[in-house]
């Protein structure tokens, strides 16, 4: 071995997949898609869930603007990624969300009124009755990646055929928790799929100021795990690639990372005003690529659904969301004493005087 003259150079390539283009035309025939497990029925289901999510999102913002919801993080424009995740996962898998994967969360069985409860300031919203082992949303950026390592580690040593899927944003890839998790997932070859929902903006910081990496996906290579990019506005590509990664992880082939390229069409949250830092032109361009129009065009073009069918779906979603909102608004508030009730399994006596203070406040309020 001559260490002085030999030089090792690793050459890597990050693939990019798009099956459904901006006009709603497929690069492959539908027949091929059926081979990949994408039936006409599944396409309609995708569209229905994306529509349901967008309807929910619009309603949530309306509720916030009228004082009936707290600060809310919209997922406008990112419905495809969520829908793909939701349909690619099995019930027994564990989803570790950030906070913009509304479509996935809904598909996994969290009720719209539960999501509203959380953003409406009620902790009970994260005690969702659907996927009991799924993690609550994660506000501190990238921290959920470490939880996903622990969750998938437990699955691996228990030899369960289950997979963990974790989502973070483009901003999260700058943080230590992201790198530490990718690295550890590689070391232990965990059944874990990382998804970077790259929506181009971390509040006001654009993608190119977040990292000089050509792709965010390639950050996985440093951790020794495979990676790729997918058009995040193409639900078909997202689904096929995410499903394949989950299947491989379930078969013991280890972790994988997918960067889905999308765009945050909304403000960061309802407390944000994106016009302070980005041009309308930029957003207008992004609207041309958004995920729902292209899928609807495909469905109409391939005669899978007609205009009346689309309108019927719109009405169904709207009615269901209205009913969920009515249920949300009718939920009586929790007792303030619950802030003590769930602090420990058994509240130490040491805090009983503080509990009495809040009980006293409740009584005084009743007397007013």
């Amino acid at each position, binding site marked *: 071995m001559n260490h002085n003259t030999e030089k090792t150079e690793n050459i890597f390539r990050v693939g990019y997949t798009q099956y459904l283009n901006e006009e709603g035309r497929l690069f492959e025939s539908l027949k091929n898609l059926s081979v990949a497990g994408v039936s006409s029925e599944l396409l309609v289901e995708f569209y229905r869930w994306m529509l349901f999510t967008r309807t929910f999102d619009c309603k949530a913002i309306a509720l916030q603007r009228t004082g009936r919801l707290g600060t809310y993080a919209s997922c406008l424009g990112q419905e495809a990624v969520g829908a793909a995740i939701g349909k690619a996962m099995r019930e027994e898998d564990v989803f570790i969300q950030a906070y913009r994967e509304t479509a996935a969360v809904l598909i996994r069985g969290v009720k719209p009124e539960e999501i509203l409860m959380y953003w409406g300031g009620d902790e009970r919203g994260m005690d969702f009755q659907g996927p009991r082992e799924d993690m609550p949303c994660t506000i501190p950026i990238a921290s959920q990646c470490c939880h996903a390592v622990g969750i998938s580690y437990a699955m691996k040593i228990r030899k369960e055929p289950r997979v963990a899927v974790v989502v973070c944003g483009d901003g999260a890839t700058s943080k230590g928790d992201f790198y530490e998790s990718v690295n550890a997932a590689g070391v232990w070859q965990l059944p874990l799929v990382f998804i970077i929902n790259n929506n181009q903006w971390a509040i006001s910081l654009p993608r190119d100021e977040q990292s000089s990496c050509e792709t965010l996906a390639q950050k996985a290579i440093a951790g020794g795990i495979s990676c790729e990019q997918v058009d995040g506005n193409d639900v078909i590509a997202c689904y096929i690639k995410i499903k394949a990664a989950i299947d491989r992880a379930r078969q013991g082939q280890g972790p994988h990372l997918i960067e889905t390229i999308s765009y945050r069409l909304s403000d960061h949250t309802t407390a944000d005003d994106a016009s302070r830092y980005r041009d309308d032109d930029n957003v207008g361009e992004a609207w041309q690529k958004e995920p729902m129009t292209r899928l609807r065009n495909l469905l109409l073009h391939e005669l899978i659904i007609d205009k009346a069918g689309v309108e019927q779906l719109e009405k169904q979603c709207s009615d269901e969301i209205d009913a969920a909102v009515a249920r949300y608004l009718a939920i009586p508030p929790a007792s303030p004493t619950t802030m003590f009730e769930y602090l420990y399994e058994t509240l130490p*006596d040491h805090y009983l005087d503080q509990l009495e203070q809040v009980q006293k406040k409740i009584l005084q309020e009743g007397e007013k």
Partner: protein
Amino acid sequence: MKDMTLIDAVNNALFDAMAEDQDIIVLGEDVGANGGVFRATEGLQAEYGRERVIDTPLAESLISGMAIGLAAQGMKPVVEIQFMGFIYAAFDQFLCHAGRMRNRTRGRLTCPMVLRAPYGGGIHAPEHHSESTEAIFAHIPGIRVVIPSSPGRAYGLLLAAIRDPDPVVFLEPKRIYRLQTESVDNNGQALPLDVCFTLREGSDVTLISWGAMLYETLQAADQLAERNISAEVIDLASIKPIDKTTILSSIAKTGRCVIISEAARSGGVASEIAAIIAEEGLMTLLAPVMRVTGYDTIMPLAKMEKYYMPSVEQIITAVNNVMEF
């Protein structure tokens, strides 16, 4: 019964806990083949395997966050952070998730994890290896902070911490890891959490301390006894929550209190105890409550260390002051 040092007791508790509960996982840096830099986990990996005794990559936030994920899946992770000086990277996960998980999911998910770390000064260690920052953890809601001060209490309290259904920070006073050997009944019995231990009954003054400083505190009590001053010595043990019942009933008896801690003076656990006594025990006091603590300085390196650490003489001076008040 077995003769053990404090570090042996930690090791024994880990062995016994892992034997009784398959869901217990030990993870940290160098905890496997190396048995931990202080040998707290010695022999565990050989006994329980690499999957349950995990050598992690060098990433404290990962270790802490991973434990939260393991706990959410029903495992019981026992994390070793190599030195308290490296715990701050793990702090973010612990504060933002471990202590909150039960509350923010209304009990759907919980976090029965233990975060162990050696802490404290007095062993001429390198920079970042000597601080006592237990107060930072004591400020976090939803968790417990426990510090043992003898081999017997290390064994019993660590078992209790591991069996507890909520997150526990377990800080081990490394200065006394090997200072004394004690016969410990390693019968798998845990000691109670959330309570103080009265190590010595007395009637003139209450001395409250925890961790390694109890060594000097008990020496001071011996010297005071020679002068017919009867000191009651309380091992706080539970830094959070603080057992105010035991403290207040002792003060009611003695009327005087000196709190001894090697941590920085301001905003410390000693201050919290003084505040509890001021609020609820003022009328029983015969003298002001005194604190004997480290300074509000950066913990000095080895050459100046002894000037930082509270001494037996400082404790006796404080007791003299409250006796003469």
